[in-house]
């Protein structure tokens, strides 16, 4: 991984007793403790409004924690961001789809943190952009304007941007919403491969059936941490009912 200091034995993500309260007084998270080792793929699940997106944003430093601490690769978040160590694909992209940039331009933005102060794209950057486009099978769309894509294609573009960033940590907030089976499998295999290459991945999802196939661990939250651990021992009926308010667990992916 580029831009990663020696991280042997250091947790990729270390969240300790995190609490987040929004400015309107709403307590979104309370006493969340979660650690991810390098190369660990962790699914984050919970009901709507349980605080999953809030946890992601706090991890990225987009929201300030009210209590507790977060360290990334053993250091503060701001430092990790400046190294380009954290890549993020938000739940809903809040961008102007009419903006005059091409798909290739957007993916290149993932490289921007690694460029020197003149921000010139070097051959290495172009190669990584091409590779990311290929990995997500959108090379043919490279010169389209960003608004001229379907919802699923847009999702792939932002995943490609995160991939091109070559980060050590990847945060995906609901990458599977509104995508077809093919795209879903493409993203899952991507996540698995990135994990094998040493990237720590936190992926928010509502699809439970395929969790075991691409995740090492699962964290179930409902404002507080309900359960966290390996998928097979944690995703139990009892934990599920605690997290999802008594609803019995259905092992299908229909609840996207």
């Amino acid at each position, binding site marked *: 991984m580029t831009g990663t200091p020696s991280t042997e034995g250091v947790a990729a993500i270390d969240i300790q007793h995190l609490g987040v309260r929004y400015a309107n007084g709403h307590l979104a998270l309370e006493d969340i403790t979660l650690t991810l080792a390098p190369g660990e793929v962790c699914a984050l699940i919970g009901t709507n409004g349980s605080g999953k997106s809030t946890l992601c944003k706090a991890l*990225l*430093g*987009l929201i300030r924690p009210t209590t507790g601490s977060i360290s990334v690769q053993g250091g503060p978040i*701001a430092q990790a*961001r*400046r*190294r*380009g160590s*954290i*890549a*993020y694909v*938000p739940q809903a*992209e*809040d*961008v*102007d789809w*009419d*903006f*005059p*940039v*091409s798909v290739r*331009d*957007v993916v290149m*933005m993932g490289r*921007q*943190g690694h*460029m020197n*102060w*003149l*921000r010139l794209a070097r051959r290495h950057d172009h190669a990584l952009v091409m590779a990311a486009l290929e990995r997500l099978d959108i090379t043919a769309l490279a010169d389209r*304007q960003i608004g001229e894509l379907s919802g699923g294609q847009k999702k792939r573009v932002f995943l490609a*941007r995160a991939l091109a*960033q070559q980060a050590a940590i990847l945060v995906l907030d609901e990458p599977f919403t509104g995508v077809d089976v093919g795209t879903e499998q493409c993203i899952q295999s991507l996540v698995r491969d990135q994990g094998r290459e040493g990237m720590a991945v936190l992926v928010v999802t509502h699809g439970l059936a395929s969790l075991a196939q691409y995740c090492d661990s699962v964290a179930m939250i409902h404002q507080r941490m309900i359960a966290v651990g390996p998928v097979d021992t944690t995703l139990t009926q009892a934990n599920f009912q605690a997290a999802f308010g008594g609803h019995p667990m259905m092992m299908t992916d229909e609840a996207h």
Partner: protein
Amino acid sequence: MSLLLEGLLLPFTFDFMSEALWVGVVIAALCAWLSCFVVLKGWALAGDAISHGILPGVVIGYWLGVPMVLGAVISALGCVLGAGAITSRCRIKEDAVLGIAMTGFLALGLVLIAASQSTIHYMHILLGNLLGVEAHVRQQVWLMSAMTAALLVLKHRDLVLYCFDASQAAVLGMPVARLHLLLLTLLAMTSVVGLQAVGVVLVVAMLITPGSTAFLWTRRFVPMVMVAMGTAVISVMLGLWASFYANVETGAAIVLAQSGFFLVSFLLAPRKGVLARYLSFRRAVRTDRRRAAASCTD
């Protein structure tokens, strides 16, 4: 033909006209460049507030004998940042607060002008005076244009990313708050430059119209900047011809030409113009019908 060419070139054989042309071209190109960011960021109203907010600073700057950029930037930032601070602390919508701030600053500027002795000087600030830009002002224009252009080149990628996706810029560790302030400052500096041509009242047009026109013609950022600059520069020429031959107010003529470009583009631009969109829709419907008819007869 050569008679027409002669007629077009004749005005610029006069020194004051060719000087006005140079200054006007630089001012228009710079404003057009900034206008692309303004339009894409959805900052038309903020641009308006900045361009009006500079007035008290410019007047006070004159009084104190400091370079007018300094006063202008401070007062413009005071205007928009003050409005921003108020918006985040009360329930009045942002556009209303910006409107209050901008008209308040403009009125303050007018009061200050009335309070000062010589009013002739300040008419230039309100309406612009491209045909009579003084030498020391021209130097300020060159200097500020060079500085702004250099910053725009150096910070190009960061500013584009900031405008497109501010949260991604933050995730990549960029100083988002500083980029925000940089863009506001550049806007204030450009407003000061722009008011030399068209005055405080109309300078916002130079900061909105060329970018909007160019947006209709292009699908990439750099071409958008080029088209914006092109239309702005041609507008300056049209404005100067109009004022030379028809004795029209230069600043107003420039802005009118820019508005004309926008209107024509709205109608005729390929892909994004109304006519092109209508025609391509009609064409698609016609093929649909033909195909449907063919499948019926099969």
